[in-house]
């Protein structure tokens, strides 16, 4: 395949999946710049190393899996996982601040930030990126029944966090 063809094919894949991958990374990392960096890394990796893309896995699943792994590495490296759950003080003050918090982006950001990374990841894949159970299972390398169960637990915990932060 010639260079222009290769670049054209890459552009088609990029244009199709960029919004989904960007939303996933943005919400996983809660920081715009880090999210953008991960999107860049993922697509460059896809472009440069076709060997790591075995062809049996759909491109979409490959991209989401790659993005998720990179986000989890960043979260681990930044120690964000350690901060998860340490939200007692913020929750206490959140109700009073809730009246002023009109921005839904901030609301959802706060809720997601307080979820464990694996719950956050599965919720984003389902609610933001509309991946099917099968696609999520392949992305997370697990079974469809495990996806169902984990989604339920993630929704339950997200609901609890939302009610704690902002009331019913």
């Amino acid at each position, binding site marked *: 395949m010639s260079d222009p063809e290769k*670049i054209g094919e890459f552009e088609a894949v990029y244009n199709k999946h960029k919004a989904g991958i960007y939303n996933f990374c943005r919400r996983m990392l809660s920081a715009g710049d880090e999210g953008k960096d991960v999107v860049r890394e993922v697509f*460059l990796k896809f472009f440069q190393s076709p060997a790591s893309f075995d062809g049996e896995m759909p491109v979409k699943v490959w991209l989401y899996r790659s993005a998720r792994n990179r986000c989890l590495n960043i979260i681990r490296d930044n120690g964000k996982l350690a901060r998860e759950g340490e939200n007692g003080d913020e929750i206490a003050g959140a109700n009073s601040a809730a009246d002023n918090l009109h921005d839904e982006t901030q609301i959802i950001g706060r809720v997601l930030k307080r979820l464990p990374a694996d719950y956050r990841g599965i919720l984003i894949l389902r*609610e933001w990126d509309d991946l099917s159970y099968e696609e999520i299972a392949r992305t997370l390398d697990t079974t469809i029944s495990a996806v169902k169960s984990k989604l339920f637990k993630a929704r339950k915990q997200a609901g609890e966090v939302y009610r704690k932060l902002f009331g019913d």
Partner: protein
Amino acid sequence: MNCDYIQEKLSAFLDRGESFEDADGVLSHLYGCNECKAFFTSAIKLRSLAVRDKVTAPPELDDSLLREVKKRRKVNPLSYRLRLPVYVISAAAVFLLVLSFTFGYLMQERVHQRELKAVLQAPPARVVYSMPTQVVYPAALRQQ
């Protein structure tokens, strides 16, 4: 039916929009259970927030990424990689092998023919007969 069972059903219903296997049981439980009602309400709320939270990728990301891709695509001519299907490469290898055997055989034949021609064209051999020589030893050695 406990709440976890009902909530798992509700979660699956939200995802696939399928009807419940036990719709009456689930709905009657939902009607009377505040915990499950709260779960369902928050799950729907989360979904509506997620739908409104979706954004498009920033244009500067497109520019920088596509520029980077084109830059990385400029390959070193010394590291050019041959991109041919495997069967073409295999066929070429077999062809080269057969060609080398044929060439070797033809060359061998040619050498043989040249050697034969050289033998045939050579002048006939002449046999030189001569008398055997007799060695005459000194008297002292002759006794031994």
